[in-house]
């Protein structure tokens, strides 16, 4: 990590960039916060380890409007989001200096805690070049868990170790995929209509309408969200019965369909653990099936499938025909 910090300091010192967006050490060993570093001195608090899961590309919307270049640290999957933001003219590429950083999968503290770990006072083995096991020092004794056992859900469906955009790449990433990216979607598709309904009802009824999924989403970059509009009859904050949540999550997924890079931030941030990526993945899978494979953010020039068409597109009735067959 010291090498990385030195490199960032050098970039600041030679004037290549005016600021760096990265992560700052947390007050605990597992909660770094995304932060803006304006000086070499501030970089002393910089950290990059297994808990730096946050996708920093959305912070570049504001940062690239500032004077001077902003360096941003992007993991391979984050680089797709950045490309998509370029595609939508939300960031100024000329004002960005992208450092592709290596990733070996990011850790999910909730998953660690679910294994029975509590009262964590220190964590070791989470650096990029660290060990294969993570050691938790806790108030109730030390515990060891394999690094790969406690990754964020999205990392098990890793998109790959290559950065799709970067000015320089530091370190070597690992592809951590162990399952098909649509396996979870297929499992739900195989359910009966009533089972599907029960499944989503149970999950979505946990929603507290905090909007974290929307606010963290790099695709949800509208200046004013339709769900915040006073002119539109949404019951934004009322979680009165299951309808509003369904409406919100379906429409939100729909609004990012064809643009969602499948970065998985929505599921990572949900305070109630709702697997929101299942909506986005469903749209991606359908788009792939109906209109040809498409990965948003892979190519900043590519046309989104929902702003395009062909004369031969399938008819909507395919949905009911398909489910019968």
């Amino acid at each position, binding site marked *: 990590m010291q090498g990385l910090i030195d490199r960032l300091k050098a970039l600041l010192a030679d004037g290549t960039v005016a600021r760096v967006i990265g992560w700052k050490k*947390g*007050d*605990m060993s597992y*909660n*770094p*916060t*995304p*932060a*803006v570093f304006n000086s070499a001195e501030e970089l002393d608090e910089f950290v990059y380890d297994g808990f730096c899961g*946050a996708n920093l590309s959305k*912070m570049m919307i504001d940062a690239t409007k500032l004077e001077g270049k902003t360096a941003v640290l992007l993991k391979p999957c984050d680089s797709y989001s950045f490309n998509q933001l370029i595609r939508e003219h939300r960031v100024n590429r000329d004002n960005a200096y992208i450092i592709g950083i290596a990733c070996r999968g990011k850790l999910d503290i909730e998953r660690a805690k679910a294994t029975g770990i*509590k*009262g*964590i*006072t220190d964590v070791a083995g989470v650096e990029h070049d660290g060990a294969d096991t993570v050691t938790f020092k*806790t*108030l*109730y004794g030390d515990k060891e868990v394999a690094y790969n056992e406690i990754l964020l859900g999205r990392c098990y469906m890793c998109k790959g170790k290559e950065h799709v955009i970067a000015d320089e790449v530091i370190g070597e990433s690992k592809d951590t995929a162990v399952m098909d990216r649509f396996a979870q979607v297929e499992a739900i598709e195989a359910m009966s209509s009533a089972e599907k309904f029960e499944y989503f009802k*149970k*999950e979505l*009824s*946990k929603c*507290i*309408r*905090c*909007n*974290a999924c*929307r*606010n*963290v989403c790099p695709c949800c970059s509208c200046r004013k969200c339709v769900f*915040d509009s*006073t002119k539109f009859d949404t*019951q934004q*904050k*009322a*979680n*009165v019965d299951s309808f509003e949540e369904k409406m919100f999550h379906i429409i939100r997924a729909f609004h990012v369909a064809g643009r969602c890079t499948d970065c998985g931030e929505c599921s*990572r*941030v949900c*305070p*109630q*653990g*709702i697997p929101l990526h299942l909506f986005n993945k469903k749209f991606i899978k359908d788009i792939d099936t109906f209109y040809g494979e498409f990965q948003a953010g892979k190519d900043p020039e590519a046309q989104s499938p929902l702003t395009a068409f062909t004369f031969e597109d399938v008819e909507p009735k395919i949905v009911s025909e398909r489910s019968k067959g």
Partner: protein
Amino acid sequence: MLKISIDKLSALYDAIAANNELILPVRKAGVVDYASYEEGADVAIDTLKTAKSPKNAFFPQFETLYNVNKKIIPTDASAEEGACEGAGVALRSTLSVEMAPLVDKDFVIFGIKPCDVKGIEVLDNVFLAEPVDNFYKARRDHGILVTMACNEPEESCFCSAFGIDAADPSKAKADVAVWMADGNLYWKAISPKGEALTESVKSVFEDSDEAAVEATKASIEGILAKLPNANLSLDMWGKGVLDDRFYSPVWDEIFKPCLACGTCTFVCPTCQCYDIKDYTTKDGIQRYRCWDSCMYSDFTMMAHGNNRNSQKERFRQRFMHKLSYYPDKNDGMFSCVGCGRCVDKCPQSLNIVKVIKAFEASKAKEGQA
């Protein structure tokens, strides 16, 4: 003091539920929150921290305040219909307001932790202040709190900074205090309401003596002292610090990662801001109240503009409210109880502890300079 074996807890639940609605930590799709004790409920009583606080029981995320029934009177309605006149003019429409019924049945919140009890005290200072909020008061009058010692506090807990004793729930402003120790649940009524509840469920208990929980208390205290934030300093906060803290340069940087979501607000046991909105139903208008967050950009939006325009101002509002404005109004009491839910849940790992520490750090730096 009374006791019951942990294996027989469901007998206690049934006994309580016979006369009251019982609310306790229930696991649903992997997440534990306070919910009703119903057939098939997956009770997770040893959960230290539910995802949401139990404030929902007194200040629900959504509640109807009143219904308005609206009737348009056709312009050609004959004058004989007496209802068409009021206040000396011909009426074009009539409205009638019907207040939603208040809660009138007792309910028990079982397993609420001492920090969350304190959170309800914080809410009391707001909702029971004149003019009293009757919707809240009715729930307070009918709610019975069975508070439980925190056997295994975690690193995100910092309740001791606010003078809360997680080892001894009998110090909390609740009705019954309970401990889980050596395979038993120990029960002690600490208020008249609690005694009445005890009387009604007495048959499931055996007698026990006070000393049974001393070892547990001591072990909890031992852990509490070791928590990383046990000695979080609140010296810079409280009454009369408004000007010094409000204009601090610390706010300029610290808010930046904030997503402006409402996670911290909605999981917080003391956040009490709400919105009032209308819903047009088939036969009238339902006016409801729902949680709101000062982190949202539309929170203070008016027709002529917004007085807290930037996320910095909104971020500052939330923490100043908890650590300065509220203490100013309530004799130094903080509007934070150290439950640590925001510490666990903030998507960007930003939280009140980091804010407090950032201010301490900036003071230390100033001292050096």
